[in-house]
């Protein structure tokens, strides 16, 4: 027995012995994946470094001779410009409102998909259809729907005049863009929540029922806490997605009446104005702000999870 408990002293102190064959195999493995790693670095790191480099120039594609090194001045211009903050604010508004509404409707859809007994396939498919539609197409569809000339929305809403132009002012145009975004991506949200819902143990719900918990109590005290991870993933994915909102705006207002998001501003600098320097600076700022949003959401949910652990 004692021989088993005391390991050989030599083996514990020294390095593990690796045979020549194993070493050669490791080297071969490294050599085999090296091209893929180099390619990955080229594909992902090169554009980022290039954007960083370009962002230090005042450089318009149509005036290649007038390229000047300006250091961080593009960042300074962007960060001190009211337009940058206005677009950031409107982007945050798009994100918060659409994600909040999608979370509620998406959860309801997930419940329906989870509990439905008859025609399960048909119901699930029809809930998911909007997500299969290209965002640009959904943008056009909703643009037509909101049009006062050939749309149906004005006819449906009793408090809106028949010739009300939804894309004429910021509030209504933003609402129309949000509706199209919510319609398009709620199914994605409900799909993620459905996965979470499926993980909630039926036994726990059953036990709560036996204890006399009402439907609301079961939802708030049993189902939702157990879905926290799924909800976090859903909110994180959708929030990052919504922060990059572009297509609907591009199609429905082309950024008019102050509906443009930060992605749209970046697009306009780079692609429409050919201002590569400022466009790159904005894309770097966009990248950083996406990181901040992701960090905040993860942080927010982590705090909640920690609290949940203390309670239990």
């Amino acid at each position, binding site marked *: 027995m004692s021989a088993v408990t005391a390991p050989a002293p030599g083996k514990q102190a020294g390095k593990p012995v690796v045979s020549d064959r194993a070493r050669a195999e490791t080297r071969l493995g490294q050599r085999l994946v090296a091209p893929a790693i180099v390619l990955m670095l080229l594909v992902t790191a090169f554009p980022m470094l290039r954007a960083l480099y370009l962002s230090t120039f005042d450089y318009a*594609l149509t*005036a290649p001779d007038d390229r000047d090194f300006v250091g961080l001045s593009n960042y300074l211009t962007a960060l001190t410009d009211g337009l940058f903050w206005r677009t950031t604010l409107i982007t945050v508004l798009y994100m918060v409102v659409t994600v909040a509404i999608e979370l509620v409707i998406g959860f309801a859809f997930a419940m329906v998909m989870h509990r439905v007994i008859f025609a399960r396939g048909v119901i699930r498919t029809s809930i998911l259809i909007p997500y299969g539609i290209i965002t640009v197409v959904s943008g056009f569809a909703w643009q037509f729907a909101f049009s*006062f000339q050939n749309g149906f929305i004005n006819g449906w809403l009793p408090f809106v005049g028949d010739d009300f*132009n939804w894309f*004429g002012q910021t509030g209504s145009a933003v609402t129309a863009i949000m509706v199209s975004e919510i319609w398009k991506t709620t199914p994605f949200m409900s799909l993620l929540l459905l996965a979470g819902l499926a993980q909630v143990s039926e036994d726990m719900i059953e036990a709560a029922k036996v204890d006399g918990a009402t439907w609301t109590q079961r939802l708030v005290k049993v189902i939702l806490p157990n879905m926290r991870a799924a909800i976090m993933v859903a909110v994180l994915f959708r929030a990052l997605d919504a922060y990059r909102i572009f297509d609907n705006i591009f199609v429905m207002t082309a950024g008019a009446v102050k509906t443009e998001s930060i992605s749209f*501003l970046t697009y306009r600098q780079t692609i429409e104005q050919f201002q590569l320097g*400022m466009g790159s600076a904005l894309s770097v700022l966009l990248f950083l702000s996406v990181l901040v949003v992701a960090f905040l959401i993860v942080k927010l949910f982590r705090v909640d999870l920690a609290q949940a652990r203390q309670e239990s």
Partner: protein
Amino acid sequence: MAVAAVAALAAGGLSACGSSGKPTLNWYVNPDGVDTFKKYAKECSTDDYDLEVQELPNSATDQRTQLARRLAAKDSSTDLMNLDPVFVAEFANAGWLQEVEGDLADTIMSSVEGDGDYLSGAAETVTWDDKVYAIPLWANTQVLWYRKSLAQAAGLDMTQPVTWDQVIQAAADNDGTVGVQANKYEAYVVWINALVQGAGGSLVSDTEAGRDAKVEIDSDAGRKAAEVIQELADSRAAQPDLTVSNEGTSLGQMFPATGAGEFMVNWTFVYKNYEGQVGSGLTEDQFADLGWARYPATVEGEPSKPPVGGIDIGVGAYSKHPDWAMEAARCITSEQAQVDLALDNGLMPSTNAAYDKVAASGDYPADLIELFRTSVDDGGPRPKSAFYAMISGAIQARWHSPTSVDPDTTPEDSAKYLADVLEGKSLL
């Protein structure tokens, strides 16, 4: 099996772009008059090369973006391209266009002074830095289209130049509307530019200085332009979709189910558009009620400056066959091609000789043809600058929406903003 299929595909792909056959020159065209372009692509192909038509997107902005992306990447397959006149300066300054040389360049240069065969308004659009970078194909211009019955009801004498003020009043008092292009896009700048020039001013001057161009919109002319826009926006004559209106939206207001119709500033295609609807949606009488007059004046007594548009043909700087491409460009801008475009597609010629032939064909009313021709010649081009996109964008940013335009603040605001944008001090 799969490997064999991939190999076969690769082999097929390689042979398709091999050097054995005749080279194909790509001609990027905007989607107006594509049938005629296809016809001329065939006619202008030779034993040395074939011409192939490639369609660009609908809007001028998207056309520019697509061409610029190709040219910025030094694409050798962009041989010929249809360019909106405002893009010529930008593209030439970027080094993306072959210079046009020889007698054709001389003709175009002397046409700018009014001595050549090209309409001076059209010739003006293809020069940059005293050189010629494209060949005018068709020259577009805007005129005032209106319902004769509406003008009559308002007691307007349309044989005399009318002002914006008169047109707006006439429409408002007689249940009519005024159609313009006021969405947040390039055509809105076309309107603003015409209004400012009509009052004797300009958006910017000294544009060859690039970023140091002189911003001139904060002027009496700029304020006059703002007054017109404000007057229309506040008037009953404004169409409900004023803030998002474009060339197409106001077409439907000319012969509405109820109401007196409209006065509309729009390009030359309008005549053929309504003529084509006679019998299906329009009656002969309605069509006979369609009138046309010179672009409205901003200030009474001062001649208006109708917008100049159209298409110029440029040859890509990175083309593998620049000489052939230039030869093809001359062929597709021939007099006959211009006549065909006018008769088949309503796109008006850029040379006097072609205009004479179109007038002689009897396809258009003689006075309309003459109106188009004088409008191009007396027209006001938009600023020619390598930074035109910035100028246009900055103006749009401050002048849109039309309902927010205020003569006391908008011209001043936009001048400051435009100067900042050009200097790189402000975001656009």
